[in-house]
């Protein structure tokens, strides 16, 4: 079963293909955009730019530290570098370079972390970026985007390019369902989208978990529970207002992310909720574990990142809320 199927959504192309097309589009529109590749352009799909604009595409090779440093030099020349690789390799090999040359220098560079999460599947845990959001969370100037729909992925690439300052965009290998209309998705950095109304609880999700959140809401509806679903495509700056509004109006929150719970999106949301309007919460994400190779959907099942896991957590917070009323 595909993500979003229960909610009646149609599946799209793999997100990496969407990213590649969007990157090509911004390169076409803006001659200041340059693309740097860590020899994975065929996987990240940045290679689409290599064919169209070879003079603005640089394969720096398998050398992520150098990749980021060269990117920083481009930004200092008032160009807009997109530094692209797998999320795991880029962040883990070049964390210090991103920290000094990009985040601390507060330059206008964009970082694509492709193959985020566990759903790259069979290549196994060495390739999976399950800690990238937490790592980028450690960079105070870094905007963090995790779109969960093809149209918003395209909009995110455009918004990241137009934003002045460092941006991290997480992409994944998996196909995602169409949630927004193709032509004009609502996408503003720092503004979460309420994509389903409901007053009984709120599910706040990003990336591939967004489609599963809508599936969960459809299941809950049959039980008479109305779940609000929030697309938290921007992890930093966090949309406190929409989160707190959900806490106040629904009184129960479930968060869902394809990432370690430690340092992840849920913990950021919990901090805001705890400070201003505590409500029962549950967190869907990876417990402290490195997952193994496997089919992406088998992995999602085994590590409790499915719509049914969100449903179970939702029932729990809803019951907790009612018992407290």
């Amino acid at each position, binding site marked *: 079963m595909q993500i979003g199927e229960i909610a009646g959504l149609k599946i799209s192309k793999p997100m990496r293909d969407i990213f590649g097309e969007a990157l090509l589009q911004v390169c076409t529109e803006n001659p200041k955009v*340059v693309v740097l590749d860590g020899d994975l352009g065929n996987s990240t799909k940045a290679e689409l730019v290599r064919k169209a604009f070879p*003079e*603005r595409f*640089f394969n*720096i*090779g398998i*050398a992520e*530290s*150098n990749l*980021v*440093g*060269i*990117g*920083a*030099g*481009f*930004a*200092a*020349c*008032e*160009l807009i*570098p997109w530094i692209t690789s797998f999320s795991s390799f880029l962040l883990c090999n070049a964390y*210090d*370079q991103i*920290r*000094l*040359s990009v985040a*601390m*220098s*507060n*330059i206008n560079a964009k970082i694509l972390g492709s193959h985020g999460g566990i759903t790259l599947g069979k290549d196994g845990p060495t390739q999976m970026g399950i800690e990238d959001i937490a790592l980028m969370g450690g960079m105070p100037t870094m905007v963090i985007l995790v779109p969960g729909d093809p149209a918003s992925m395209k909009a995110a690439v455009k918004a990241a390019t137009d934003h002045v300052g460092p941006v991290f965009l997480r992409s994944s290998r998996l196909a995602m369902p169409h949630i927004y209309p193709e032509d004009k998705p609502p996408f503003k950095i720092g503004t979460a989208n309420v994509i389903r109304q409901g007053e009984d609880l709120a599910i706040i999700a990003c990336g591939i978990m967004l489609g599963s959140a809508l599936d969960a809401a459809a299941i809950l509806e049959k039980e008479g529970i109305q779940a609000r679903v929030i697309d938290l495509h921007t992890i930093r700056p966090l949309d406190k207002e929409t989160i707190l509004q959900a806490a106040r109006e629904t009184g129960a929150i479930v968060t869902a992310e394809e990432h370690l719970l430690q340092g992840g999106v849920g913990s950021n949301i919990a901090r805001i909720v705890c400070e201003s309007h505590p409500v029962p919460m549950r967190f869907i994400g990876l417990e402290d574990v490195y997952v193994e190779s496997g089919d992406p959907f088998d992995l999602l099942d085994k590590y409790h990142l499915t719509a049914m896991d969100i449903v179970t957590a939702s029932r729990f917070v809803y019951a907790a809320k009612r018992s407290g009323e």
Partner: protein
Amino acid sequence: MPDSFQSPEIESLEELARKIRIDILEMTTMAGSGHPSSSWSPVEILVALFFGGILNYKPDEPWWPQRDRFIMSKGHAAPLLYAVLAHAGYFEHDEIWRLRQIGSPVQGHPIQGCMPGVEATTGSLGQGLSIGIGHVLGGRINKLDYQVYVLLGDGECEAGQIWEAAMAAAHFKCDRLTAILDYNKFQETGPISREMALEPLVEKWQSFGWNAVEADGHDIGDLIEKVKSASSVRSKPSIIIAHTIKGKGVSFVEADFTFHGRALTPEQAEKAREELLCK
């Protein structure tokens, strides 16, 4: 620097180098911390670049797109960078006395743009050469023909990123990139040859596809000549391996590598001041 700039006499550059050494002494002594000995070894290198008719820059327009770039990869020599930028007219000389003070932009290690003319954030070693490559490749896209100079420390050549950058600079034929290696032979904990052997350095850089030459890092005339001739080498990057003395100018610091990461005591500073003023 206007095009009509005439290379001043070497003697006056040496006098400027002496003043800059005193600035470094006073800055780090006032701050009570910093890296005076690492800042003293490449003084002549920066004097040659900034005041010897090599770098093309406009202090009143620090981010002039056509400027030649200078990147201080060995970020712990920040006091030297600030003193040189002050003498070059990027900001008031008095600003340098705020080194390492809270609320001051004169940071302990360089942060890109913290002061006019500070091109890159460095201090975690090994990173500046890659940034220099980005400036060269960016210049190609922007159709600007400036030169990029990167000052490397010898210890930081132990970092893998330096060799990633060395490979890439040759691959991309970055002939507008010139690295200058401040080869003072000591790293934080001891002599380089004892801690992590770097030799044969010239052969290493040559084998990575670079034009590599050696120079006397305290001879301003030699440095100007070698850097100018390196800048005219086409289709490959150049490195000047400049032999220097760590702590140059103050005898008891030259003799003791443990001064690497500490300022002089007021008593030591007094002795150092006497030595530097007498020369």
